[in-house]
């Protein structure tokens, strides 16, 4: 059976050259970078090199990079660390309704601790209203947290404008850039970002490593109270091989971004146009143009996304219904809910997230496999049968 992977927003394969670069740091250069002796020294250099590589990708100084164990840890550290450090300044946080659970649930936790959180709505394309953002700022506001790119729809927030508003009101600005890195240019200076989260496994590094950009002068309370690693900001022995892998993956992502993403965009557009040409009653979820080049999120009216996914899987095609972290949950995605996607359509949302290794042949295979599955599931759907015989059913007209 063919195996086609179109779930790169969930995770990516480790790049062979990245794995190659990591291997010496298991058995040969095994030292602890915090040690003073030769074994530690050799490794400490590699960690610092990785720090430079990550810093270059987002245009910051290496000293502003702290390695963490994953994207969620980075978000958790940025938000809770800010809440604690700025407790005396205020208790209000602004975020958006479509953030990753790593941000949303951290904010919900803080609400239980007495913080107030504003969850900004988005429009039907998943886009943020800047006027509403500015209006939500209060004297007690200590943090704005808005993602760079949405993991489910790929919609890109106007991050530079958000950053300008945050700067104007002197409010700290955190962004989860996990999905954006390696897919679109990310520059923390242009965007006035204070805290930015990187995840390794979304761009060809292994799982279990990430980084947090902390702008110089940004006070953040450490959440792990152990040793003195990472300038006292994040205790715990460095995961050296993974950090080395993250560094190289960031360097390669920066070098190849323009070239590879142009290819990915062409493939994604081919898939998108093919689906709309072959299958009636399909809705695009997310912004039609201001969107990651690799992401396509569509709803096929009358069918459940989960059934479609399982059928695709049995044909060797890996896709997703929204975020992998929430798949298996019957709740329609909070992102779809926030974008005024009708509930039946929200249940049928399906995400294809492509990568540079996908080919035109693979896209064409998906376009061949998908329409009959959708039709078969629709034929089994009681809603669809009723709709075919009911002229007043208007859901389709609204698509």
């Amino acid at each position, binding site marked *: 059976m063919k195996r086609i992977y179109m779930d790169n927003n969930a995770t990516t394969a480790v790049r062979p050259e990245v794995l190659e670069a990591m291997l010496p740091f298991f058995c040969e250069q095994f030292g602890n970078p915090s040690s003073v002796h030769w074994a530690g020294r050799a490794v400490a250099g590699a960690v610092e090199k990785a720090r430079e590589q990550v810093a270059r990708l987002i245009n910051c100084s290496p000293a502003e990079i702290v390695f963490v164990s994953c994207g969620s840890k980075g978000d958790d550290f940025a938000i809770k660390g800010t809440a604690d450090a700025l407790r005396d300044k205020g208790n209000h946080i602004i975020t958006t309704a479509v953030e990753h659970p790593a941000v949303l649930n951290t904010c919900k936790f803080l609400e239980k601790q007495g913080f107030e959180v504003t969850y900004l709505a988005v429009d039907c394309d998943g886009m943020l209203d800047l006027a509403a953002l500015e209006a939500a700022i209060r004297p007690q506001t200590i943090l704005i947290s808005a993602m760079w790119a949405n993991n489910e729809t790929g919609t890109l927030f106007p991050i530079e404008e958000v950053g300008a508003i945050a700067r104007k009101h002197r409010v700290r600005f955190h962004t989860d850039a996990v999905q954006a890195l390696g897919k679109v240019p990310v520059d923390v200076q242009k965007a006035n970002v204070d805290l930015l989260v990187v995840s390794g496994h979304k761009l060809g590094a292994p799982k279990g490593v990430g980084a947090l950009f902390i702008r110089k002068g940004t006070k953040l309370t450490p959440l792990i109270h152990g040793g003195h690693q990472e300038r006292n900001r994040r205790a715990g022995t460095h995961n050296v091989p993974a950090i080395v892998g993250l560094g190289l993956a960031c360097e390669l992502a920066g070098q190849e971004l323009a070239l590879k993403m142009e290819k990915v965009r062409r493939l994604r557009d081919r898939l998108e146009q093919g689906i709309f040409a072959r299958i009636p009653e399909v809705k695009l979820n997310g912004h039609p143009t201001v969107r990651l080049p690799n992401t396509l999120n569509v709803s096929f009216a009358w069918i459940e996304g989960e059934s479609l996914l399982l059928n695709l899987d049995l044909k060797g095609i890996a896709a997703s219904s929204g975020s992998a972290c929430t798949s*298996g949950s019957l709740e329609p995605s909070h992102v779809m809910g926030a974008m005024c996607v009708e509930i039946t359509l929200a249940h049928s949302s399906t995400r294809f997230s492509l990568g540079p290794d996908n080919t035109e042949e693979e896209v064409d295979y998906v376009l061949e496999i998908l329409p009959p599955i959708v039709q078969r599931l629709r034929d089994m759907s009681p809603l669809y049968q009723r709709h075919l015989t009911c002229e007043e059913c208007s859901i389709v007209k609204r698509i």
Partner: protein
Amino acid sequence: MTEKKRIVVAMSGGVDSSVTAALLQEQGHEVIGMTMQIWDYSSFTAQHGDTFGTCCSLDDVHDARRVAEGLGIPFYVVNFEQEFQRQVIDRFCDDYFAGRTPNPCVLCNQLLKFELLLRRARELEADFLATGHYARIIGEDGAFSLRQGLDPQKDQSYFLFTLTQEQMGRVLFPLGDMTKEEVRAHAARFGLRTAEKPESQDICFVPDGDYVRFLEEERGGGEMNGEIVHVSGRLLGRHLGTYRYTVGQRRGLGIAWPRPLFVVGIDADRRQVVVGEEEHLARAELVVHGVNWSQGEPAAPLQAVCRIRYRHQGVPAEITPLPAGRARVVFANLQRGVTPGQAAVFYDRDRVIGGGWIE
């Protein structure tokens, strides 16, 4: 079945469903494993910190996944938490608070396993849904009949009385003609890691068996206490909630009385628990509702053996169909422990004729 079929196996992680999957695969079929996630244990675990050995705990999802991985078959977890809450748990609680003693396993089979999961299987173009139940489905004269499993110790046909003809045409019970020992031997032969797992006994969502605490956590609060009265009308004591009692219950009444006392009735509206001596438990008949007739409703009263709870050996009875999906069951001899909320299932030898819910 010589033809190669696509079969979804409902895998719980236990030995029965694991052997089911392995056997069907050995017969050359294309097997897909599916586990229903029906209950979120995280809150419970956080509170109590122990692990559970019941049929549906999260640990068993992991076991099912590992078994599927070992067999090299696709495996999916389908989330039915909302439906389970609504269709099974809410009704479980409603029943207890209305003075009945519910049977959630039958409901889960009826409304989730052989409805929603079967639909999922059909969406995957599966020819059949197979489970590890000890029961048999036999096709004869153009219709299907549900039969007891051949192992009398394990027979689970009681839990399956709601199966319709259409469902029976799409469901397989490959273990129905085996004993538990044979199944364990197969498990050992296949090298299944679940071969030595103990049997699950409790209700899956009340893994510690403390259903009273479960009910109080689900529906806590409010004035629940009331009187315990003797059938003669005499007030004997007070109780903390009628949901804590089951008809037929003897222990835990906390009343000194010359003869052993049993719960013989529960009046939830008056918050009254009625107790009496053994002879007050005896019933000559009962009425069921929500009846499923496995091969169609009979035109006239019929003689059958009626089981009024899972481990009941059965009693000869005359069954009379009534309008609106009800039926009257008149026993050949008096029966103790006729419990509202439980299922009464009718048999002709090993064949299930039908069944319903005791009123």
